[in-house]
C-alpha cells in the first residue's frame, strides 16, 4: 500500500512553473543582490563577512551574561566615583561658605547652625553640609 502512496506522490514532480520562470529567476536574483548591497549597513556586511571567514568562531555561552555583569559593575564604579568627587567638591565649597557654628544637640546627627553674623540669613547644616548652599542637583 505504501508503494501506491509513493507512486501517487511521484506525480507531484510534474508540478513545475513555466519554462521561462528560471530565466527570470536569475535576473531577479541579480536585482535583489544589488538592492541588498545598497541598503545594508556597512557594519552588518563587515560582521557577516567576519563570521563567514571564521565559521568556527562562536560567542561563548556565558559571554552575554558576563558582558552585562561587567557593564553593571562599571556603571556602579562610575556612579560611586561621581559621588565621591561630588562630596569632595561640596567639602571645598563648605570652606568658602560663611563660618557657622553648630550647637551640640541631643538629636544625633541633625545639628542646628547659628550664624555668628546677624546680617546674613541663617544656614542650615545637615550632616555637616550647608544645605542652603547646596546646588539643586545635590538633592
Amino acid at each position, binding site marked *: *500500500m*505504501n508503494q*501506491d*502512496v*509513493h*507512486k*501517487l*506522490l*511521484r*506525480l*507531484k*514532480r*510534474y*508540478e*513545475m*512553473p*513555466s519554462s521561462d520562470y*528560471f530565466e527570470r*529567476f*536569475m535576473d*531577479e*536574483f541579480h536585482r*535583489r*543582490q544589488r538592492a*541588498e548591497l545598497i541598503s545594508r549597513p556597512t557594519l552588518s556586511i563587515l560582521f*557577516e*563577512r567576519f*563570521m*563567514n*571567514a571564521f*565559521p568556527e568562531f562562536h560567542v561563548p555561552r556565558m559571554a552575554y551574561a558576563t558582558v552585562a555583569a561587567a557593564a553593571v559593575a562599571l556603571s556602579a564604579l562610575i556612579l560611586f566615583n561621581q559621588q565621591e568627587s561630588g562630596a569632595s567638591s561640596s567639602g571645598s565649597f563648605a570652606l568658602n561658605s560663611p563660618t557657622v557654628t553648630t550647637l551640640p544637640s541631643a538629636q544625633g546627627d541633625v545639628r542646628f547652625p547659628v550664624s555668628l553674623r546677624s546680617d546674613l540669613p541663617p544656614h542650615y547644616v545637615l550632616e555637616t553640609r550647608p544645605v542652603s548652599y547646596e546646588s539643586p542637583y545635590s538633592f
Partner: protein
Amino acid sequence: MAETAQEPEIKDEDLVARTQNGDPRAFDDLVRKYSSRLYGLVYNMTSNHEDTNDLLQDIFAKAYRSIKGFRGKSSFYTWLHTIATNMTINFLKKRSRSYKMSLDDIDNGVQHDPEFIELTSGPDARREVNLKELQVRLNEAMMKLSNEHRAVVTMFDIQGMPHAEIGKILGISEGTVRSRLFYAHRQLQNYLQEFLTT
C-alpha cells in the same frame, strides 16, 4: 544531422572555489544548476508558488553570503539543501494558518508517465482521475503532515533522494528518516484513500 558537442559539466567544487575567490559568475552557474531542484523541494513543502519564489531567492542569497565559510565537509549539494530545508521549515513555522494554495501547472509529461497511466487506466483503477482534482488533493494531503514529515516525504517520494542523503541534510539518522516516512505514508494513505488501488 550536426553533432553537438556537449560541454563537460563543471564540478561543484570548482564552481564553489571560484565563487570563494570572488567570481560571481561561478555562483550563477550553481544557481542555474540547482534552482529547479530546490524549487521542487521548497514548492512541495509550501504548496505556494509565490512563497517558493521568495524563499528560493532568500536561500540563494544566504548561500552566496555564506559560501566563504563552506569548508567542504559535506558536498555542496547537501550543504545547499540543508540551508533550503532549514529556511523553509522556519518560514512555515511563521506562516499563518490561513494561507492559500497557489499551485503550478502540471507538466503535460504526466500524461505519458507510466504511473499516471496505471493510475487512470489500469485494471485496478478505482475511478477516473481528474488531474486538477488529484493535484489539489495531493497538496492538501501533504499540507496535513507536520513540516518535518513533509520534508522527508518531499525528498524521498517526490525528489527520489536516498535515505542516507536525507539524513545528512536534516541531521538525523537513517532510522529516523525511515520511521518518519512510515508514519507519513500511513497518514497520507488515509487522506488519499479514494485514489489508491486496493
